[in-house]
């Protein structure tokens, strides 16, 4: 009897831990660059799989009709019609919908004061607050059909309640992508959700084409200037690590990033003296996170010894942070173009960046 009981327990545990495998094969997958988004498309069915980067066995699967084809009544679709009312909890989501000219479908955001898009601002959309402390009542009030969230803390606290009242909650892990085009590829998610798949594909292909052309053209030139990125936070220098999204952009722009050999796909922390030793050799400083030299010196008194502080080659997006955070994920081609212009010293008409003065 005990053995049977034990066998049952083992069976239950093994069933519970069974990984949720992708139903989309590599051949079917339309996403070429993204690590965490997979999409397959047939005549009457689109399957979207969003993989949790922290637990790849956890896959959020969405089945929706191919809005260009017939609706198959035998399929149990998760979303039956193109979504018209979306709550977007990250600026990057807003930027992607703007790129599809679908910003009018945004009915709620995290905080309106961080929005760049003028149309979204003027539409008087609802501010829902921080993702972890979001109010379901406000979501209901916004009449959103779906909430797209970032999953920063690996969970979305209101998911269960929203499911009960028929509001889809869809994670978006674009921020975990280390490939610039992989991050931009999440525009396809918004394209399929809103019935604009064709346009999303066209926009994304154009972004890819621009990016790859810029990259190739730049590869012919000589090795770029030695560059440092980041700034001091809480007594340590925080900068992109060697395999991060930013590091790849620096590399593609032909820059010689001083921390490119540092392992990791996110941010790294180094001591200030190490940063100063590197920064003293660098001739260029990108993304100090502050709009003026005065603000940089207020936050980091040792910045005065950085070589770029003396030669003036400091560039950042902080004069218009909302624009950068909203559009840069979707338009890595424009970020790359800015970087190429900066490293070559032709800094006219930068799209996101500005020289810090």
């Amino acid at each position, binding site marked *: 009897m005990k053995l049977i009981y034990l066998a049952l327990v083992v069976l239950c545990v093994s069933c519970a831990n069974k990984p949720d495998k992708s139903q989309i094969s590599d051949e079917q997958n339309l996403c070429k660059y993204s690590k965490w988004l997979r999409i397959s498309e047939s005549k009457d069915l689109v399957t979207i799989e969003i993989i949790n980067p922290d637990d790849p066995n956890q896959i959020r699967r969405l089945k929706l009709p191919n809005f260009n084809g017939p609706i198959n009544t035998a399929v149990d679709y998760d979303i039956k019609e193109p979504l018209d009312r979306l709550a977007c909890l990250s600026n990057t989501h807003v930027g992607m919908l703007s790129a599809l000219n679908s910003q009018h479908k945004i009915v709620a955001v995290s905080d309106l004061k961080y929005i760049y898009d003028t149309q979204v601002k003027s539409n008087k959309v609802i501010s829902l607050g921080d993702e972890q402390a979001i109010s379901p009542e406000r979501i209901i009030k916004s009449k959103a059909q779906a909430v797209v969230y970032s999953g920063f803390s690996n969970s979305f606290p209101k998911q269960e309640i929203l499911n009960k009242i028929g509001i889809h909650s869809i994670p978006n892990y674009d921020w975990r992508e280390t490939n610039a085009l992989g991050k931009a590829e999440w525009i396809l998610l918004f394209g399929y959700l809103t019935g604009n798949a064709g346009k999303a594909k066209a926009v994304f292909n154009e972004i890819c084409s621009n990016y790859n052309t810029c990259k190739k053209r730049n590869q012919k030139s000589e090795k770029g200037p030695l560059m440092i990125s980041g700034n001091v936070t809480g007594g340590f220098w925080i900068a992109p690590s060697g395999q991060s999204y930013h590091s790849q952009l620096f590399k593609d722009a032909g820059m010689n990033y001083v921390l490119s050999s540092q392992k990791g796909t996110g941010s790294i922390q180094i001591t200030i003296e190490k940063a100063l030793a590197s920064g003293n050799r660098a001739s260029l400083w990108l993304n100090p996170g502050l709009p003026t030299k005065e603000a940089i010196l207020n*936050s980091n008194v040792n910045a005065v010894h950085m070589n770029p502080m003396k030669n003036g080659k400091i560039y950042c997006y902080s004069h218009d942070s909302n624009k950068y955070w909203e559009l840069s994920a979707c338009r890595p081609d424009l970020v790359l173009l800015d970087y190429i212009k900066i490293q070559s010293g032709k800094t006219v008409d930068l799209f996101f960046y500005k020289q810090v003065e």
Partner: protein
Amino acid sequence: MKIVKSGTVLFLVAIIGIVFLFFFGLISGDIDTNFKDVYNALFHYSNEDINQVIIREIRFPRIVMAIVSGAGLSVAGMLMQTLFQNPLAGPYVLGINAGSSLLVALGILSGVGFFSTEIGLIGSALLGAFVFGLFILFTSTFIRSQISLLLFGVMLGSFISSIIAILEVSSHAESLKAFMLWSMGSLQGVSTHQIPIIVMVILLGCVLSYLIVKPLNVLALGEEECRLMGYNIQTLRVSIIFVTALFAGTITAYCGPIAFVGLAIPNLTRMLFRTQNHFVLTTANIIFGALFLLTCDIVIQQISGFILVPINALTSLIGAPFVIYILIRKVR
């Protein structure tokens, strides 16, 4: 006689420890440097040599800040503990640091440029520390229980944190960033040219503390005894709050809130020296406070290859169990 002798030995050992750690901190770090670099950085400085720049502009101000902050916070803690006759009192626990933070938050998050400047920051921090110190003093006339006063301080801290949180939500992104950077606290936020003024303010605080040693000795016996000895108790109280605010406000302005130093070190020195002589206690707090924070800083630098630990996290890691130990002893 024995206690005096062992006390002198303790002082000597601690001073030698500070001197050793001072030079050790100057020579060791992430970037390899040698004695010659240290000598040149201190006496023949050239900003063309990166090793000298690192020693003089990064290590030296950080180490000096560790010494003066440790000394200042410990003396501030001792003063508060004597004033409230409570071993668990301190500028951090009683909400004086929080008051300082509130005024800094109000200043920076208001978006008015002046408050983000050095003078604006120090002024806000000092004013906040002094006003909230007086407020705690005023409250202590109604709340007689030691534990209740501490709880009041903790509640005040929470209340202020809530106000700061509301200010953060409604502030401009750039102001918010400036405040967040300040509130993280660090010994690295000071440059070499700021050191003389900070050292002078802390020295002034130490001198003022020594000037009130006698009334402090009497106050330790009780307020009634203090009155009978002819001291003006109100003036003494305000003087203590002023000196505490000077220490807590200056250090909070430059380094952000640093927890538990002002609580743990005065208790440690009382345990080591077993005296109510505030001349000895003040000296002990200056020396052992400096040694403690300097040791924390050196430990952080030495383990930085494996893990980067903020100074506040390490002081709390050591200070919190020590405070729990004192609490348990008190309950027993």
